[in-house]
């Protein structure tokens, strides 16, 4: 399998309330713009659930985007929650020491799908 074959895609509008934004593939400086556009579009509708489970890779370009979205949600008043990703993705939040800044859905309520 050639990993280059796996294209980055963003699914928008899934989930029970249609607020789901689910990126697939690798999130880095080349792909964060596409996710940012999807998040902003969904935020304008009042609620965003970012599902990281389809991500294979995340670096600080994506981390920054997630933190900015969390800040924007507090400032602009839309709801924002994040469904965690694979361990390699979650590790970045821990190493950067920002896990508490990200509203992970599993960490409080246990309503992980």
């Amino acid at each position: 399998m050639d990993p280059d074959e796996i294209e980055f895609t963003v699914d928008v509008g899934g989930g029970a309330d249609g607020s789901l934004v689910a990126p697939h593939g690798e999130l880095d400086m080349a792909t964060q713009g596409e996710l940012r556009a999807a998040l902003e579009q969904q935020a304008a509708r009042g609620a965003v659930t970012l599902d990281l489970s389809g991500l294979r890779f995340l670096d600080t370009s994506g981390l920054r985007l997630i933190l900015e979205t969390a800040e924007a949600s507090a400032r602009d008043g839309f709801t924002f929650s994040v469904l965690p990703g694979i361990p390699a993705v979650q590790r970045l939040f821990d190493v950067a020491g920002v896990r508490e800044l990200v509203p992970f859905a599993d960490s409080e309520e246990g309503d992980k799908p």
Partner: protein
Amino acid sequence: MELLTSAGEIADGRVPLDAVVPRLLDLVVPTLADCCVVYGDGSDPRVIGVRVAGSDPAREAAIRREPPHRPPAAALLLSERELGPFAARSGVLLALRARGQPTGALLLASCEPNRYTPADLRFLQVFAGRLAVGLDNARLLTAERQLEALVGALEDAVAVLDGGGRIVMANPAAARLMQVDSVEVLIATPPAQLWERFALYDADGRPLAAGNLAWARAREGERRPPPRLVRRIDRETGDQRWLLLKSSILRDDRDRPVMAMYVTEDVTAVRRAELGQRLLAEAGRILSSSLDLDASLQEVVELTVPALADWCGLELPGSGGMLELAAVAHLDPAKVAVAHRLRARHPVQLDGDGDGAAPGVIRTGVAFRMDNISREMVRAAAVDAEHLELLDSLGLSALLVVPLRSGGNVLGALTLVSSQAHRRFDDADEAVATALAQRVADALRNARLLHDRAEIANVLSAGLRPESSPVLPGCKIATVYRPAGEEVQAGGDFYDVIDTPSGSIVVMGDVVGKGAPAAALSALSRVTLRTAGRLTGQAAAALDELNHALRRRGAMSLCTVVAIALPTELPGTAEVLLAGHPPPLLVRDGVATPLGESGPMLGAVEVAEWPVATVELALDDVIVLYTDGVLDSILPGGDRFGEERLRRLVEGAGSDVEALAVSLTAELELLRLRDDVAMLAIRCPGPPALLARGTLSDGAEPLLELRLPGGPEAPRAARHALTEALGGRLSKRIEGDALIVVSELVSNAIRHGGARTPGADVSVHAVLRGAALRIEVTDPGPGFDPGGHGPRADGGYGLLLLDRMATGWGVSGSDPVTVWVELQ
């Protein structure tokens, strides 16, 4: 006489006009006349009724078309000529008068000649007088009925009270408002008795006294009573209404109030919406305007009293699984202490079942409502007499507890209590309370995020504190560091010694602000200076980069910095840059001299240049860097510590930097600190060592030699190449970290290192020795681009990651520049 009696019966009957006229005509025709016409009064003299004996509609219609007769001054016999259209031989025209006013005319005509004689006129006039009264009553009755119909259709309750305070007229809306079956019942009941079933409060929540009942204005003698807003609670059902009472007073000739008309509008829905919106808007303003959350929460709960409740408490999970009363407000301020005492004596456990509604609401996130709380229920809930007394004194008749919900989490509960008997909370109350609780919860969550950030700042700046003496080979360094903040054990002051390929840079900074936000900003500033300094080896570029970072951050993020680039050998030239920072002191032969020329504070201007002052350093020279917290400390007598005392202290210590630190520390014990205090003194007996290169480069297995075209696709290409080259030989964790590191380094090369486009290449080399991996990323330079004003997307996290993931990392070269990282 019989006729007069019958006429009187018309007059006395309570029959409307359209029924009276035919009766009148029945009475007259044919007994008194063959033809009878009733005309209206002066303002409308048209025919009201006409009757011709034997019923002749064609003739009746003809008579209606004739010009009307006006009421004569006295009874008048009509000539045959005047009677032409009536085809009559004799006739009489009579005035109808009532209440002293002509109200119309009555014409009688007969086919007999001389049917009416002057002798009859007196009788006929009396007869007409009786009829006139009957018609007038009927007319009034009709007008009254029209008015009644009009008032009856009104949605507003209308009640007219006479001088004695009895209701003389009311509409069905008034009956509905007062919750009685009909207008008749309403009129039959004295108003005081009607109002008894309600508790009344004014707009400020004060009870209205019995003598000040809603419909009791007529006795107050006010000329134009202003509308009054009354909150009315049904003592039986707890139904709460907001009523707007408008009254007008009818006065007699002597200006005495005779009647009062009340129009009562039910403004409950409007008032609720208005109160709710005002409450929420005000709460939003309070919560967003202050960083002092405790004070804001207190202000918010005070808003709800009395608009929503008589007392309001905010409960948050506290230490030891207990619920803490974070804020409380009561209509009677004296009772706030009672609420706190109650909680102190009878703590509530978050997972306790018998401790009221709040724990359950917090656990389940479902609001709780309870009405009609009786004294018996309170008594049953009380654990002892004292508890009961405290509960009683608070007053408890209805309860509403809503969860503080934010982002799917319940952070606490908002409790609203009404002490007013029979008041109950309804859906509208719950909706407002829920919206309010949501705002409070969002504010709490934001504050916690801020607190968490402060914690992170603590962690980030932990590197500042324990590193009491940064090590610079060949140099002696002594430091003093004292944060003024109480909550955060790291302050806004920082210092660092940065190793760069071209020498060491000593920096000290002071961010504007105190406490957690300052610590966070200080961490950012330190990391940025360190990163940029390490990558460029230039103090000016480091300042420029931090300036951009602060500008990008917005919200007046300001920082003063002094940076000194030390020479690699002595004697040599040091460069001193000041960005709004107090000038460092050069101590040579026991004399202190300020260094540098001040430039703008970082974050204050978009683009700036900082003057570079050079100073020739010799062996045993001491440089003392400090923040203005030292100068601004207050002596026991109230004087500022100031420049002169610092200079004497520094000169007294001579070239012994440790002695300087000890004497400043001793001095600080006596001072009152107004800001963070930092001091760093450095003595250079020999050349500061250059940054050591990594150790892995020798004798390692080459893993990857890659040249990538620049541009945003490069990080991904580098990651994939590295994954392939590693072939699963390292642990998942190290491989994952390595991918992040290579992604960061390549991204950084693209953003800042001039490899923005595919035309410029980035090189990635990797070697492996055992379980240790070394990655080198080289870009065409100029290393770090100090002129680049574009957004820096990594926000400083990239370098933080390197620091945490790598066992070692560094920078070599300046054009091209290579960043190396070792992982193990």
